[in-house]
């Protein structure tokens, strides 16, 4: 009923190969983007923008980065926060040391630095896989944070190793209100998500998935595993690096290396597991789940005026229980639930 595609015929290859082949999807997504870009910044409260939506978008981008590596290329990684840290601290250094460098260029360069670190630490993936690879990416996590605390140059000789993000100025416009920062983050995230979606649909993405599904077979049919895996590491780290820079510049403002600890890596890993491994939409849904649910539970517990210590423990319990529940009901994550829902809507009211 809602999803009837009757009358939507594809007569060209281009129309058959669109990202969203169904018209309703295109309209819905266009409407959502319009809403997010034009209506939300005007009407949402500063709290909503700066404490909920901005971190949600940034974590979505980081989850997308990890999803490229883990979900599409099958390389388990625990170093996401480290790549984010590289992006943030590299952007900081580019802006601090090259006065007048365009902000967006600094973010891109920060992302490229993260990509290089990603390639370096992706090298073990050529020999090991699965849990062993997770352990070696864990080394990235510790190594990068160690470097940032040990090498004063990286933090511009700040005595305690903490950096202060410079003001975001792009084309002379200063992004200092929550609404403007939100629009900036949204634009970057939307653009990069679109890029990722297209990359995954192209030859590159197919090579990643081939390696993920069976690397020996992928090699036999002509994909070069080394190039494929390292490319996945580079692209994934680039995404994480940009997310890390945004985390520092558009969200935290002042960062110590500890902000990018192992805990953050785990949270992003949970995001893609709950959202859906190997799905762009899943990265967004997972980030929403992990960022919003604790906040919602916390507000709920507050409004029921539970004592704070009880409330926060209850919050952890409910959160844990929900994760287990979701994974039992739908091990493929929220994205899969959405897909099933869409199928159902397509067939409704006729189940067969």
């Amino acid at each position, binding site marked *: 009923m809602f999803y009837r595609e009757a009358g939507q015929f594809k007569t060209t290859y281009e129309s058959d190969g669109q990202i969203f082949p169904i018209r309703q999807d295109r309209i819905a997504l266009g409407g959502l983007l319009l809403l997010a870009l034009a209506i939300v910044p005007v009407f949402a409260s500063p709290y909503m923008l700066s404490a909920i939506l901005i971190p949600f978008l940034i974590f979505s981008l980081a989850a997308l980065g990890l999803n490229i590596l883990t979900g599409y290329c099958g390389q388990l990684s625990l170093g996401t926060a480290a790549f984010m840290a590289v992006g943030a601290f590299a952007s900081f250094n580019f802006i601090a040391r090259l006065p007048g460098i365009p902000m967006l260029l600094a973010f891109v360069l920060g992302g490229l630095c993260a990509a290089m670190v990603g390639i370096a630490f992706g090298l073990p993936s050529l020999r090991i896989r699965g849990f062993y690879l997770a352990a070696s990416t864990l080394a990235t996590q510790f190594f990068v944070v160690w470097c940032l605390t040990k090498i004063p140059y990286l933090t511009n000789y700040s005595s305690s*190793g903490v950096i202060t993000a410079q003001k975001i100025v792009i084309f002379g416009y200063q992004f200092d209100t929550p609404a403007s920062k939100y629009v900036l983050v949204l634009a970057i995230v939307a653009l990069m998500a679109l890029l990722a979606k297209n990359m995954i649909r192209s030859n590159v993405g197919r090579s990643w998935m081939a390696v993920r599904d069976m690397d020996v077979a992928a090699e036999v049919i002509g994909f070069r595993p080394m190039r494929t895996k390292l490319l996945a590491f580079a692209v994934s780290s680039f995404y994480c690096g940009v997310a890390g820079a945004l985390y520092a510049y558009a969200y935290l*403002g002042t960062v110590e290396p500890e902000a990018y600890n192992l805990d953050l890596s785990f949270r992003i890993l949970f995001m893609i597991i709950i959202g859906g491994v190997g799905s762009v939409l899943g990265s967004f849904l997972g980030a929403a789940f992990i960022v919003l649910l604790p906040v919602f539970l*916390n507000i709920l517990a507050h409004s029921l005026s539970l004592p704070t*210590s009880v409330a*926060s423990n209850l919050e952890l319990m409910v959160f844990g229980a929900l994760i287990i529940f979701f994974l039992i009901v739908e091990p493929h994550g929220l994205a899969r639930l959405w897909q099933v829902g869409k199928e159902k809507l397509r067939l409704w009211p006729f189940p067969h």
Partner: protein
Amino acid sequence: MKSIMLCATLIGAFNQVQAADQFIALPSYRVGPYAAGGSGFYGGAIDYFNLINANGGVNGVKIQWEECETEYNPSRGIECYERLKTKNGGASMVEPLSTGIAYGVLDRLVQDKIPMTTLGYGRSDAANGKVFPYVFPLITSYWNQAAAMIKYLADKNGGYDKLKGKKIVHLYHDSAFGKEPLPVLEAQAKQYGFELIKIAVAPPGSEQQSQWLQIRQAKPDHVILWGWGVMNSVAIKTAQRNGFPREKMLGVWWAGSEEDTIPSGDAAKGYTSMTFNTPGNYPLIDEIRKKVYASGKGNLADQARIGSVYHMRGLTAGILWVEAIRVAQDKFGKGKIMTGEQMRWGLENLNVDEARQKALGAFGMFPTVKTSCDDHEGSGAVKVQQWDGKKWIAITPNWVVGDKALTRKLVEDSSNAYAAEKKITPSCMK
């Protein structure tokens, strides 16, 4: 029916009527690895608020507060700060008790006009109110603590000149927190000619075998334990196992609470640490027992923790905040609710001297705090306490103050560098 009632409570909570109370935002933490510190500190502050309210408030103005669980996580902390800052007519003050969160909200404070206190942590250079008008590292910062540590060790050895040739190990939590005192310690090592051996412990610090082996080989005269959480009791126990006398260990004030020593058992006996409170019982604590806990309004679940190190630190914070409200009311109107800007003025013009402490029933509980635009710290004095196996006992009768000229110079240099980086023109606010 149940869901309707739930909805009604929810709507009721969201449409709270703006109350005529002084609102203080408490992004606190009571779960997670640092729960012991958080629950004690915020418990103390809330106990003091309850006492003030039971006594009729500050010139009739009651104090209102709201907590929000941060789990010590910067991301959650910022969410909490953003959520609380507009509630109940706007927060007039905030205290996250976390370096990460404090750094995260640092830039927002000036825009939102909300002052933040960072009691005994955070940016030491925020003592310069010309660059950081809205940040108050009250009582003492890490730099003054480090200077006081050297002063104490010098006194113990019979003067600064006796430090020459001595070996001091700085055993630290490998994070911004542990590295904060290094500029002071390095400068003093050069000045007085002692050897500073820096040994890092990877967080969280539950594994220190190799570090203590290194310490045993170096045979230092003193070990400064700049630890945090689980690292402290592990250090104390490992020191015992390696036969290092605990009397020679001097902890930072985050390594000197009952929560650090009791789990270490016998090993902690004789261990010394810094503190900015004098352990003991005070008329104020008795009053809190009588008026707050007896009427069931006490915040600590375990009443044995009343008067413990973290609880007293929370009480101290509560006293300073309420005094700031009082000072601000004297200028801007008694019986009125102070805005964030007015509260900032109050915090900048504090003068909690011994006479005032006596009046509050807290004589000697913390050093005299007198702030100004130049000095947002207000004191810089600390004490050294020793664990006797059951409780902490102050072993320096007077407050210890280190080389303040040195720390002041560091504050100036560092805050001016920050001002240059952020393009701030240092100036005093009215």
